[in-house]
């Protein structure tokens, strides 16, 4: 992005929602500030972002001074750890000063560590470690690493390792920066000396983009649908047979092994993986049993192998997963198949697998990592595929909408737990679309602030039946005022539909709070149809327009179906 483009983006920015982010650095923030604001605007459209800075040359004080905010980006350079490691100081690089520099850097890192950990209690913090090199301060030629440089790098690595272990702190990836911003094109010496701003425009742009992505990662996609022939493996299964397909160095098909490993790793972190292939289903079943396959058959569901059109297979997979098309990536080597699926499901993102170009395959794997990467893998991520399989199996036993008898036979258990510090609650609220009270998304700081409101309550709801656990699949939250409960957060994963969990959640909220009325802060969105359908049970003519919907316990019980869950109450209110 050019500086002019960044300013144009800022010129168009604005919105009712306000966001405050701290940029913590010891240099003049200048263009880095502009780029960060522009990337925040792109990340959060319709939001006005303000960037709080600090004093020049006082990174430590600036970190200490950061108070309220939605997040902070701390950009550290060597000169912040000791001024003599920058080019604006003139204290000399004599042999005898080097030991002192190392000592000072070590002490400074210790202090920064304490301040950053304290700051991370208040808001999420992204930390960018020095992206500029050390100055030429020893007698050695540049090709030879000197002792001082090695010691400084060890101290820095230790500091980064220690802070990375603290929740709330995320390290900006040096590898990612290196892949898009060459180290010899980062330092603008002229600008550094003239204005105290050390970066070239191109590096400031990259640093801003990666830092914003690190602080506020985009919600990850949920599922990958992959083709088989010339994609998951080399060869046409119908032509070469089960033993003829390959994914190995010996067979010059290692690119497919790289792809399989990537899929297996993503599946392990909870990403859904399905197959859509024009193939003989029996042959596919046999091929997927090959013991050297790097993606385990248990990690794949469903397998759609037939001679029908790809978009129909994709449709059946979306139905089995019960997730929106825009959460899904489709990978195929055929541009025609990609186009056919795109026409039917424009929300599904198509990525082409290029079997003859290993570099393109590695690039594809990075693209998948960018779309599916997540900061934390929760128990629910591991349960997701199992529960989808179980649901499919359960529905095969019955009709599409389970009967009350079926739910009784399912031995359904619902557990409600206090959720104020549960990262799963935050994750669910920010990624659920269909059963979502109002579609409001929160930053971590806003989320923490909600929990501090007087009378605040927040619970997660877990579900389990004889088909297996679904994990924590719903969140309900709000605040209590006198004898009323105001609910402004209520979401439920689509995996949990048709189990009457939503009715049970409301019954438990009435019971737990003793409220004479619940007021739901409802807002219709393009995608919360299932929530609106649920509200149609209780409100004549449906939920209608944005506003507060009032429900009294007697009305609820009159209209609520018979519920057969066993309730496990771990919710303190």
């Amino acid at each position, binding site marked *: 992005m*050019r*500086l*002019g483009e960044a*300013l*144009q983006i800022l*010129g168009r920015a604005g919105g009712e929602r306000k966001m405050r982010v701290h940029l913590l650095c010891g240099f*003049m923030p*200048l*263009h880095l500030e*502009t780029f960060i604001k522009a990337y925040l605007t792109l990340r959060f459209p319709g939001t006005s972002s303000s960037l709080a800075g600090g004093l020049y040359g006082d990174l430590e004080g600036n970190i200490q001074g950061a108070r309220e905010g939605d997040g902070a980006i701390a950009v550290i350079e060597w000169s912040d750890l000791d001024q003599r490691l920058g080019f604006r100081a003139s204290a000399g690089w004599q042999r005898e000063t080097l030991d002192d520099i190392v000592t000072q850097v070590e002490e400074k890192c210790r202090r920064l560590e304490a301040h950053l950990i304290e700051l991370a209690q208040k808001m999420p913090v992204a930390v960018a470690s020095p992206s500029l090199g050390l100055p030429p301060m020893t007698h050695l030629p540049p090709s030879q690493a000197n002792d001082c440089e090695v010691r400084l790098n060890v101290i820095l690595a230790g500091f980064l390792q220690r802070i990375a272990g603290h929740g709330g702190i995320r390290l900006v990836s040096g590898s990612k920066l290196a892949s898009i911003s060459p180290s010899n094109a980062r330092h603008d010496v*002229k600008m550094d000396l*003239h*204005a105290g*701003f050390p970066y070239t*425009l191109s590096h400031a742009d990259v640093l801003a983009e990666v830092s914003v992505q690190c602080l506020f990662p985009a919600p990850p996609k949920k599922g990958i649908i992959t083709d088989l022939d010339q994609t998951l493996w080399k060869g046409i299964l119908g032509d070469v047979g089960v033993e003829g397909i390959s994914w190995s160095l010996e067979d010059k098909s290692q690119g497919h092994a790289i792809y399989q490993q990537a899929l297996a790793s993503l599946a392990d972190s909870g990403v859904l993986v399905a197959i859509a292939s024009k193939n003989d289903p029996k042959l596919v079943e046999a091929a997927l049993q090959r013991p050297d396959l790097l993606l385990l058959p248990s990690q794949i569901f469903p397998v759609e192998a037939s001679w029908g059109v790809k978009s129909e297979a994709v449709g059946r997979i979306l139905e089995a997963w019960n997730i929106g098309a825009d959460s899904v990536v489709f990978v195929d080597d055929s541009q025609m198949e990609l186009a056919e699926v795109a026409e039917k499901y424009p929300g599904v993102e198509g990525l082409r697998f290029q079997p003859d170009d290993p570099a393109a395959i590695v690039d594809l794997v990075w693209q998948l990592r960018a779309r599916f990467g997540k900061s934390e893998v929760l128990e629910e991520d591991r349960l997701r595929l199992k529960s989808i399989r179980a649901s499919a199996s359960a529905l095969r036993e019955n009709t599409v909408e389970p009967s009350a008898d079926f739910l009784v036979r399912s031995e359904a258990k619902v557990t409600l737990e206090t959720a104020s510090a549960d990262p799963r609650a935050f994750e669910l609220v920010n990624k659920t679309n269909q059963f979502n009270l109002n579609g409001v998304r929160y930053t971590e700081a806003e989320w923490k602030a909600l929990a501090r409101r007087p009378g605040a309550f927040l619970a997660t709801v877990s579900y389990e039946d004889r088909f297996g656990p679904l994990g924590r699949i719903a969140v309900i939250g709000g605040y209590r005022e006198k004898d009323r409960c105001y609910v402004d957060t209520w979401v439920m994963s689509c995996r949990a539909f048709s189990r009457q969990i939503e009715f049970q959640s409301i019954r438990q909220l009435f019971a737990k709070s003793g409220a004479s009325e619940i007021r739901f802060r409802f807002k219709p969105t393009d995608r919360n149809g299932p929530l609106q359908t649920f509200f149609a049970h209780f409100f004549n003519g449906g939920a209608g327009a944005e506003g507060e919907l009032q429900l009294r316990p007697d009305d609820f019980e009159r209209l609520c179906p018979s519920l057969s869950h066993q309730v496990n109450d771990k919710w303190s209110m």
Partner: protein
Amino acid sequence: MVNVNDKLSRCFALAFPELDPSQYSTASTENVSEWDSIAQLTLLTLIGEEFGREIDFEEFEGATSFKALAEVLQVQ
């Protein structure tokens, strides 16, 4: 000169979005309150991008009005 003024006006539009375009030609640090040292750096960087040239800050020292900037750019 027309081309220089047009390009320079585009830089002013980005650096001083609140300023009415009719005021560009007479704008200077004297009559535009937002035009401080930081804004000057932003403006010069935008000029570098718009004109496709590396900016030598010393050459622009004292160029604190639209007219003066246009003159330096014209000479270059």
